[in-house]
Structures are given as structure tokens and as C-alpha cells.
């Protein structure tokens, strides 16, 4: 396990050294935070907002839900590039499986982002929203824990998207399809409790997206944090399930590796 730690450590250092990239992404996050909060402020002023959710909790929901997408590095781009350039093959004769090497590197970069977004991001969100969520800072910490685990699941989905390039020659449209599903069914723009009953009650429970963003952020809306452990358990289930899926896919992908020329 020590080797994985060092791969993550080096990726963390490499990620943190690219300050311009980090700053630009962070700036985009702040713009998105502003757009989402202002959009809901307009909805609340119009009188069409849900009566049982205070604006401040909705603002925190939106702020952290958007943050989730910015925490994970764009791992699928790296894997897609490895597949298309043939670099993937050259990583296969190392004593560390390529899949976990890239996942660990993604984890290292994720930790770098966590450091920035969980400190500066939440501080700026607090200054902008003006107060803590109704459940207090404790809920904020618990949501952050869940969002971190969700980011690991998101990394695994990115690994799967990236590896799909071995079949499709282009991972971008696979990732975008996944991302659109996530945006629609994960509760990124609208809390899942506001979805039609047939979706929020049954359909979404069989998909991982709600467990990644909608359920964790709903801790801001529920008035209590009792659901934390059940959400965490569900996330761990999805982490294992998606990880097993990625591993099985990787096993099949190895036979598809072709490197011509040289």
C-alpha cells in the first residue's frame, strides 16, 4: 500500500505546482456558485420556492453540490490520452496496476483540491451566503466527508469513461453522457426531494448519482444529520461496486491494447 501512497503524494505535489490551472478552476467554481445561489434567490423572491427549505440551506446545498464537480481532477482526459497515444501499454509492465496507479494519482490531485476548496471555497461561500447552514458547522463537516467519498466514486466513473476509449476510440462522449446523467439525476441543480415522487422515491435509489451529491447535500435540508451513516454506507457500497466494475472492465481492456509502430 505504501507505493500507492507515494504515487498519490507525487501527484499531489505535481497538481499543486500548477497554480494557474488551480486558480482558474477555482474562479469558475466561484462564478458557478454565484449563478446558482442568485438563481435560487430569484426563485425565493418570486414566491415559488419550497416552503420547508430556508434560503440559506438551499444556498449551501447549491454551493457544495457544485463544489463536488470541481474537486476531482479530469482523470478521464489523462486515461483517454493514454489509450489514444498508446502510452497505456507502456504502463502495463510496471509493478503497479495501471488502473489503481491512475486512480491513486487522481486521489492525490483530489486531496490538493480538497485543501483549497474546503478552506478557501467554504470560507468564500460563507462570506457570500452570510451565515452557516441551519444545522450548523457540524452538518457542513459531515457533508464534506460525504462529498469526498463521492469524489472517489466520481474518479472511478472517470476511469471507466477513460478506458472506454479502447472500444470507442474517444472517451469524451462517454464521459459527457455520464456527466449529463449525473447532472440530471444527481440533484445538482435541484434537490432530489423536489423531484417528482416516482423518480425521487424509487428510480433514483437504484442509481449511484443521488448517493454522490443529492443525498449528502440533503443533510443541509433535513433539519438533522441522522442520515449521515446510511448515506456513507450507501456510498461505500457504490464505491466498491463501481470499483469492481472498473477492475472487470480493465481486465477486458488489457486484451484490447494495441500499440502499432515503434
Amino acid at each position, binding site marked *: 500500500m*505504501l507505493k500507492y501512497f507515494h504515487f498519490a503524494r507525487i501527484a499531489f505535489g505535481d497538481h499543486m505546482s500548477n497554480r494557474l490551472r488551480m486558480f482558474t478552476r477555482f474562479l469558475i467554481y466561484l462564478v458557478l456558485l454565484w449563478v446558482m445561489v442568485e438563481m435560487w434567490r430569484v426563485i425565493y423572491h418570486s414566491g415559488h420556492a419550497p416552503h420547508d427549505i430556508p434560503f440559506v440551506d438551499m444556498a449551501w446545498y447549491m454551493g457544495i453540490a457544485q463544489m463536488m464537480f470541481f474537486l476531482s481532477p479530469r482523470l478521464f482526459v489523462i486515461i483517454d490520452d493514454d489509450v489514444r497515444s498508446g502510452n497505456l501499454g507502456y504502463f502495463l509492465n510496471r509493478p*503497479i496496476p495501471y488502473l489503481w496507479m491512475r486512480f491513486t494519482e487522481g486521489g492525490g490531485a483530489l486531496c490538493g483540491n480538497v485543501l483549497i476548496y474546503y478552506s478557501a471555497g467554504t470560507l468564500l461561500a460563507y462570506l457570500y451566503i452570510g451565515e452557516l447552514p441551519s444545522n450548523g458547522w457540524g452538518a457542513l463537516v459531515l457533508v464534506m466527508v460525504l462529498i469526498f467519498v463521492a469524489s472517489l466514486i466520481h474518479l472511478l466513473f472517470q476511469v471507466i469513461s477513460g478506458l472506454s476509449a479502447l472500444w470507442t476510440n474517444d472517451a469524451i462522449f462517454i464521459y459527457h453522457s455520464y456527466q449529463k446523467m449525473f447532472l440530471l439525476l444527481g440533484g445538482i441543480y435541484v434537490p432530489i426531494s423536489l423531484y417528482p415522487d416516482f423518480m425521487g422515491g424509487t428510480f433514483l435509489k437504484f442509481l449511484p448519482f443521488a448517493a454522490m451529491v443529492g443525498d449528502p447535500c440533503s443533510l443541509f435540508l433535513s433539519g438533522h444529520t441522522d442520515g449521515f451513516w446510511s448515506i456513507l454506507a450507501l456510498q461505500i457500497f457504490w464505491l466498491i461496486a463501481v470499483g469492481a466494475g472498473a477492475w472487470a472492465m480493465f481486465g477486458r481492456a488489457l486484451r484490447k491494447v494495441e500499440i502499432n509502430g515503434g
Partner: protein
Amino acid sequence: MKSSILVENLVKTFKIRRKAGLLKSLFAPEYETLRAVDGISFALKEGERVAFVGPNGAGKSTTIKILSGILYPDSGSVEIGGLVPWKDRQKLAYKIGTVFGQRSQLWYHLPARDTFELLSYAYEMDRDDFKKRSDELIDAFSAGAIVEKPVRQLSLGERMRCEIIASLLHRPKILFLDEPTVGLDVVSKGIIRDLVKRASEEDGTTVLLTSHDTGDMERVCDRVIVIDYGHMVTDKPVRDLRSGFIRDKIVTLAMKEESIDLSLMGVKIVEHQPHQVKLSIDTAHTSVEFLLQHAMQKSAMIDITVEDPPMEEIIKAIYANGAKAAC
């Protein structure tokens, strides 16, 4: 001596999509099969240095990629230290080192020393052992200053030295080098060749090297395997290549007369200047001795040089024979 690598009837094909109309390529794509490696068999003993030579598309890189566990073959068997490369990738990784001239295993933004450290963790090296080994290699490759610079700032020759250090760090039993001198200048090529040979001699590392540059073959290897169209054309000690495949000799004569007539069977003039002539002789028709006697009858000689043709010519002759055999 034990076999280090054992390859039997290795076959690898690639499917290449045929160009067709939009609908046909969407619903009923057609493929043609390219046999990149077609029944190759050979064995390498421990500590042997073997060059794997062939023109573009001959199948040499594909073979190295199969041997190093990157590609699956269609059929045939490979055994490296009792391991099957594509099945035992992780275990095999500890026994082999690889250098692919056109790829890098070094982290681009980091100094090479950081990559060495990371690889040492990947190969689970003892900390003291890693320090000793990396110091040894950095010293042997005169790379003290190079390894501290970010890889992106290194010249190709400097980067290649770091690549080879990275591949030797964990003391592999076998080193696969796929065109390690591609793109290098003459001086850098010489350095890399000498370093690889010395590292192999000191540690007893088996070396399998592919290259288009016959200098790599002559300076580093004891044996050469030539392949073409996926088939083995020849497998000989490097020193036997000349006698086995080419009967020509190059003779340069410097003489008192401005020019002399040397019309003999199998003798061709390659270059002619006043008082000097360079000839190519097919020794099957005319012996060198006979040519010299003949020339000395016509003019007093100032200097005589008899050479083998350059290795490139020999390899060309081997390819030509191989192509004929394949047809």
C-alpha cells in the same frame, strides 16, 4: 547456461479496418488481418546481448512488447524466468527493465531523481539499497547534474541516460531496449551504447535491443536476430554476419599511374579519382589476391586498403534475402 528468454512459434496479428462507405463501415465493417509476428522462435541465454533487427513493420517492436507483457500474442509461447509475460505482468515487472526510445517513463515536470524515488517505491526497494543503487548508476552514467533538473528541460541524450538509469534501478535480469538511440547525435549514441554494454557486463543483465542503427548492434550486442515480414531471417553471432551474407569486399588502391584498367569479372568501380580508385569485388568471381596481383602488374601501388562493406549493406543484403524467402 540457463535460458533467460524462451520464445516458441510466436504469432501476433492486428486487425485493420478496411476503408469503406459510411453505411458499410458503420453496419458491416470489414477488416484485414496483418500478421505482425509470424511464428518466431528463439532463446536467449542469461547475460547475452542480442540485437533484434529489421526494417519498419518487420515485427521487432511488437515482439518486444509481447515479451515485456504489454501485448497478448495470438498463439505461441513465451517464458521468461518461468513466467508468462502477459499472464504474470506484475511479477515479471520486477525482473525486467524496459526502455522505449520514443516514450518516456519519467514524470515530465519533475526531476528524474523524483521518478527514481517513486519507482523505488513501486519496486518495493529497501531504502538503503535504493540510495546505494541510484548513487552507483548516477555515478556510472555521469548524470549527477542531469537528474536534478525537471525532465522537460533535458536534451534527448540526457533524458535517455535517465531513462536507462530508471530501467536499471531495480536490478532487472533482462533489459528490453526498443530503439534506445533514435534521434540521438553521434556522441550521445556512443555514450548510451557504452553505458548499456558496461551495465550488462557488470550485472550480467540479458539485453534484447531493437534498432535501425547497425552501430547499436555492433557496439552493444554479440548476436543478431534479423526479422522481416514477421519471420526470422537469420540468427547469428554479429561477427559471422559479414561472412554469411555478403561476399563483397571494398578495395581502395592509391597508385602511381593516373588510372588503370581493371576490367575483371565481379569487379565494379565505386569511386574514381586521379591516382586512386575504389572498387567493389564479388569474391565469388574474383579473389582479392588476384585483383591485387592484376593491379600491381599495371602500376606501382602507394597504398592498398581492403575493407568489408558497411554493416548497413550487409543488413540490406539480409533483408533482400529475407524478402526473397518470404515471397
